[in-house]
């Protein structure tokens, strides 16, 4: 009792604080007013080293810190590349085996890209560049005593900068080959960049002799693949013709990394304190990583030495000096329930739309396309929708005896299932309409994907004049019967057909999705057994090929049809070659066409070949083309220039924010409700009174009954 009384005086103080700032504002007082962007990340970024990082949630950061040679134009659709740190797009020269220049359609064995750098681009302030008065690097070699009492990276007080040079770009390509960096792209680029394999072996040998983490001067090694012509020019030589190589140049793999940084980080004692390039990036981009705590917050601050960069033409903000926002704060938000609530309270500037919060945010307008609900509109929130350049499919294991192989029986079974799985219903229940039913392997917005009547998959849909109509269930039953399973029972043995779906999804959503699949197969009286496992077992099954049906998807690395069709290219088989062709689909005709379009430029010729390939795949139906996801993004009124650009990752510099509007919104939508607190206190006090009364009666009582 007495302990509760002691807590009472604390409550008035709390009430006072509420008037000025909404009590539930998670950020320091007054910060909402400044030029700051609030966003969140759900998964801890594991690697920020441009050579090693290859996942979406890490590109959000290094995309804005590092500046590769090229970038996607912010406004143009379909996506097109433009120079970022170059004076002009790279020139390509084709050479024959002896290194003599030849014409594009001649016997090309090498292609050489020459890139010229803009002068005057400088790095972010970083201790690696700090110099002592006599010019020697301040922190190299690192005095162990000084390092001992440095706990956080920001305690390296002295920083410096340096102009970006071509050697930095060359140095990064050499780092790709360093086995200690374990770059995921190394295996892929070995076939293209000349001499990369030899370089990798050489560095590997050197690394074995002596401490693995010590500094090795990569520039000592002989490496024909990349030559630095002069301070601002360098050439990259690759085997054969590979037009898509320029897309790779726009990715962080080919961003510049200064030699001083490698020298600075690879010193003894640095790794134990997490001072490594993998955790503390150094780049020339618009922002640098000011605070790096992967369990709580990642803070990007404006790079004071950022080169002149202006908003592209054709937009109200054209000509403005970039970047326009001082700081971007990413808070860790593991669960999407709190994320959505905080977005509505104005503590996050933008948010996706989960299937649970869909009805609250989106309603379908009269014209049939999605629009904001009145509640959202009242809050001044804006919606932007875009079809993502990725696809999602239900794959059949082509090596499976029951439904694999190109034979007639299995093909008809797969076609029957393609018709029976009603992905329109799936999209409306689980994605709330945010997706287009899949017609083929290429999502819209990628060269070669056709729209409207020409784009439908005749095996599954018919065109009723205005839109694609899924074929009736009867067609599926007929195909099933022709496949030898009339009414879902094996014609010969009468056994019910049982198919197995392998999945690794065990989250809260899993139960309802798996029940839905069972319901779909039941429409053809086919028993579906779902085998849900963890990530490892699922990968094992896929590698050994003993999964029967599985769900998979692919996000485009770059906007080229090759990046999707290679998923069905025979030699890329999962079983045996551990490639990305998960269905182990092998169709010689398809493979021959793929090798042709791989090196063609976009044009009508390439379009014709792609149409033929898509037709083959639709007939063989190794996949049920489920859907192409559409992404809905919501953002508050005070955030400008946040149009979705799925390819580019350096969009932060184009954002603009109105702090005052945000603070006002927060104030309006977070008025605290105090009556429950007052009520509970009152209840507490009234409860004390009877207790005291009965005690007093006890004291006065005499012994006689």
């Amino acid at each position, binding site marked *: 009792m007495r302990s509760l009384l002691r807590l009472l005086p604390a409550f008035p103080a709390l009430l006072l604080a509420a008037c000025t700032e909404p009590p539930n504002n998670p950020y320091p007082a007054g910060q909402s007013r400044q030029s700051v962007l609030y966003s969140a990340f759900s998964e801890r970024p594991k690697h920020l080293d441009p050579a090693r990082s290859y996942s979406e949630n890490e590109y959000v950061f290094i995309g804005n810190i590092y500046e590769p040679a090229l970038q996607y134009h912010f406004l143009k659709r379909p996506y097109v590349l433009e120079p970022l740190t170059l004076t002009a797009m790279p020139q390509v020269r084709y050479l024959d085996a002896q290194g003599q220049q030849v014409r594009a359609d001649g016997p090309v064995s090498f292609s050489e890209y020459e890139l010229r750098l803009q002068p005057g681009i400088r790095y972010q302030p970083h201790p690696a560049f700090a110099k002592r008065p006599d010019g020697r690097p301040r922190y190299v070699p690192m005095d162990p005593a000084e390092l001992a009492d440095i706990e956080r990276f920001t305690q390296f007080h002295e920083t410096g900068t340096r102009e970006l040079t071509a050697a930095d770009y060359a140095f990064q390509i050499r780092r790709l080959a360093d086995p200690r960096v374990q770059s995921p792209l190394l295996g892929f680029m070995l076939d293209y960049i000349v001499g990369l394999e030899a370089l990798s072996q050489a560095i590997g040998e050197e690394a074995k002799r002596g401490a693995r983490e010590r500094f090795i001067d990569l520039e000592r090694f002989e490496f024909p693949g990349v030559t630095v012509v002069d301070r601002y020019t360098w050439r990259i030589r690759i085997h054969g013709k590979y037009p898509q190589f320029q897309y790779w140049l726009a990715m962080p793999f080919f961003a510049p990394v200064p030699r001083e940084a490698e020298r600075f980080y690879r010193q003894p004692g640095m790794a134990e304190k997490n001072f490594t390039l993998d955790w503390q990036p150094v780049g020339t981009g618009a922002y640098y990583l000011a605070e790096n705590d992967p369990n709580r917050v990642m803070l990007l601050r404006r790079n004071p030495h950022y080169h002149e960069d202006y908003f592209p033409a054709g937009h109200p903000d054209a000509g403005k000096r970039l970047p326009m926002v001082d700081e971007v704060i990413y808070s860790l938000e593991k669960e999407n329930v709190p994320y959505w609530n905080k977005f509505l309270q104005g503590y996050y500037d933008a948010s996706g739309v989960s299937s649970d919060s869909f009805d609250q945010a989106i309603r379908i307008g009269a014209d049939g396309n999605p629009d904001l609900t009145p509640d959202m509109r009242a809050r001044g929130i804006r919606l932007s929708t875009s079809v993502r350049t990725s696809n999602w499919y239900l794959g059949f294991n082509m090596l499976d005896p029951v439904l694999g192989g190109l034979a007639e029986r299995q093909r008809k079974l797969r076609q029957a299932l393609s018709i029976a799985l009603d992905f329109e219903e799936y999209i409306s229940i689980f994605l709330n309409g945010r997706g287009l039913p899949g017609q083929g392997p290429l999502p819209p917005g990628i060269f070669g994907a056709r729209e409207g009547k020409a784009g439908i998959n005749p095996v599954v849909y018919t065109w009723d004049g205005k839109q694609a109509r899924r074929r009736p269930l009867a067609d599926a039953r007929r195909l099933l019967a022709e496949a030898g399973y009339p009414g879902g029972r094996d014609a010969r043995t009468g056994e019910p057909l049982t198919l197995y779906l392998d999945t690794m999804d065990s989250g809260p959503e899993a139960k309802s999705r798996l029940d839905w699949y069972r319901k779909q197969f039941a429409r053809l009286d086919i028993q579906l057994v779902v085998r849900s496992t963890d990530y490892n077992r699922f990968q094992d099954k896929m590698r050994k090929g003993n999964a029967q049906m599985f769900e998979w998807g692919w996000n485009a690395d770059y906007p080229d049809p090759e990046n999707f069709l290679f998923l069905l290219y025979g030699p890329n088989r999962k079983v045996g070659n551990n490639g990305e062709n998960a269905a182990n689909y092998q169709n010689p005709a398809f493979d021959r066409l793929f090798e042709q379009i791989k090196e063609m430029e976009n044009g009508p010729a390439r379009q014709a070949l792609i149409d033929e390939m898509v037709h083959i795949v639709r007939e063989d139906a190794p996949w049920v083309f489920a859907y192409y996801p559409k992404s809905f993004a919501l953002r508050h009124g005070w955030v400008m220039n946040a149009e979705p650009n799925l390819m580019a990752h350096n969009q932060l510099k184009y954002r603009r924010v109105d702090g005052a509007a945000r603070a006002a919104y927060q104030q309006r939508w977070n008025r605290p409700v105090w009556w429950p607190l007052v009520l509970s206190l009152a209840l507490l006090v009234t409860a004390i009174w009877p207790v005291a009364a009965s005690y007093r009666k006890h*004291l*006065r*009582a*005499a*012994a006689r*009954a």
Partner: protein
Amino acid sequence: MSRRGLRVEGLRVQISQAGRLLVPVDDVGFAIGANECVALLGESGCGKSLTALALMRLLPEVAQVTAGRVDLGDTDLLGLPELAMRGVRGGRLAMIFQEPMTSLNPVMRVADQIGEALAAHRGLVGEAARAEVERLLQAVGLDAGRQWDYPFQLSGGQRQRALIAMMLAGEPEVLIADEPTTALDVLVQDQILKLLKDLQTRRGMSLLLITHDLDVAGDMADRVAVMYAGQIVEWASRASLYATPRHPYTRKLFAVLPRPERRGQRLDSLPGRVPAADAQHLGCRFADRCPEAFPRCHGEAPSLLQVAPDHAVRCHLFFPADIGNGASARVAAPISPPPPARVESMQPEPGEPGPPRGRAADALLEVRDLAVHFPIRRGLLRRVVGSIKAVDGVSLSIAPGETLALVGESGCGKTTLARAVLRLLEPTAGQVMLAGRDLAGLRGERLRRLRREMQIVFQDPFSSLNPRMKVGAILEEGMRSLLPELDAQARSERVAVRLEQVGLPADAAGRHPHEFSGGQRQRIAIARALTVEPRLLILDEPTSALDVSVQAQILNLLADIQARQGLAYLFITHNLSVVGYLAQRVAVMQGGRVVEEGRAETLLARPRSDYTRRLLAAAPGHLRA
């Protein structure tokens, strides 16, 4: 000067529990003058403790006082509000309890516990309090240094002294002592009783002594009130009560006491059990068990009548004589203790030449230099640094059919010796010869067969029988283990015989131990021991947990068995009067050694060792004998 002392009239306490209405204290009245000691005498379950708690108003929640009046001096205690009563409790009216080992707060120093009382009643704190505490400790015979000790560092006697000091802090007019020495040894008991007597006289305090021991009451009290089943059945001055006890129950209490002079005779016994607290009583509560009961006793409840200036009795045998002439009119059958029934073939009278007492030749049990040492381990490697010598070189022997009493205070090693003889624990040295065969070397099956020869009966009837087994199964366990040749039928026959032999109904085999009284359970324990027809029975304080009347029944039973089956007894006890009555030879133990051994009569009359002399002197009631 306000009248001093305590007056209680018509006190009635009621307990309502699980639908049943119990009246453990009914119409109790007595008075204690200043500087007077009154003893409230009664067997367990007669309501004496509850009466004391009622006076202190410390009854448990389920009980309340429903009638009666209690006046401390001129204060009506029952009418006081709880707050005021708190001032009286521990102040003018104080109380000490039976279990000194658990009555002190184990985690507080003695000085603090006494200081609390001083602060509560005399407002003494700090230095003044410390001085007063030292004075109080001196008054109760504890040296001042003891005040900083914790209770676990004091012996039983010292704790009782500390408790007394605590209660004296409030300078009480009346001190209630609820069986203060029952849990103590004879020597310590004597000191505590002398201390109470001395305090009472020096401080002019009234003392209400609650006890079940006639001798203690005899030593201490000026007047004695005898309670039975919640009522005072007789009160009188000590002289008058001990000279001419009038109420049949009181007379029975005297008759059942084992005395050396009654050796060889059967003790008078009191059949039946104390009536349950919720029983409805029409007539006299003792009627069912009273040898002189007649119809009126059952029909009409007698009231407490003054039959002499210093004697009152609640019994229809007496008429209220006018106080003047002091004679008490008697009615109907004269009451005289029944002639001592001869026990048929009791073992030979003392003094008669019994079978030649060969020392070793035909001794049933021969113990030579038996020693049991418990190692004390200390330090990191648990090295042995010393040992507690519980039994340190004991030699004794028992002839067939003979009873050897083993006497000594608690902690002298008598129970350890018994356990060592029975090989329930391994002796460190020495030999145990049973009927000529040395037990030391035996192991496993050969040891098990010898176990048939000797058995044991324990002290606490409540923990010596497995509560979860039926009596029949308990009795059969011995036979099933040691007489495997018997089949189920033979075993159940033997069970019936044994039950009949110890005076229990045959249907007892089907019931569980908790349905029997303490006395009946001890009979079951004896029956269990007899099922395997042992030749030696070790009795570890078999009667000290029982009321006197029940103790008599057990002693008679043991005497009959020994007479009929010629069993030898190793009778362990600290009660010298029982030794005098039952044992032929006595061995006195102290600190793990036998300090004196010899025939019972000679040893009790002319003890040779100083320790035995002090033991005999301390035994209550010997002054009057």
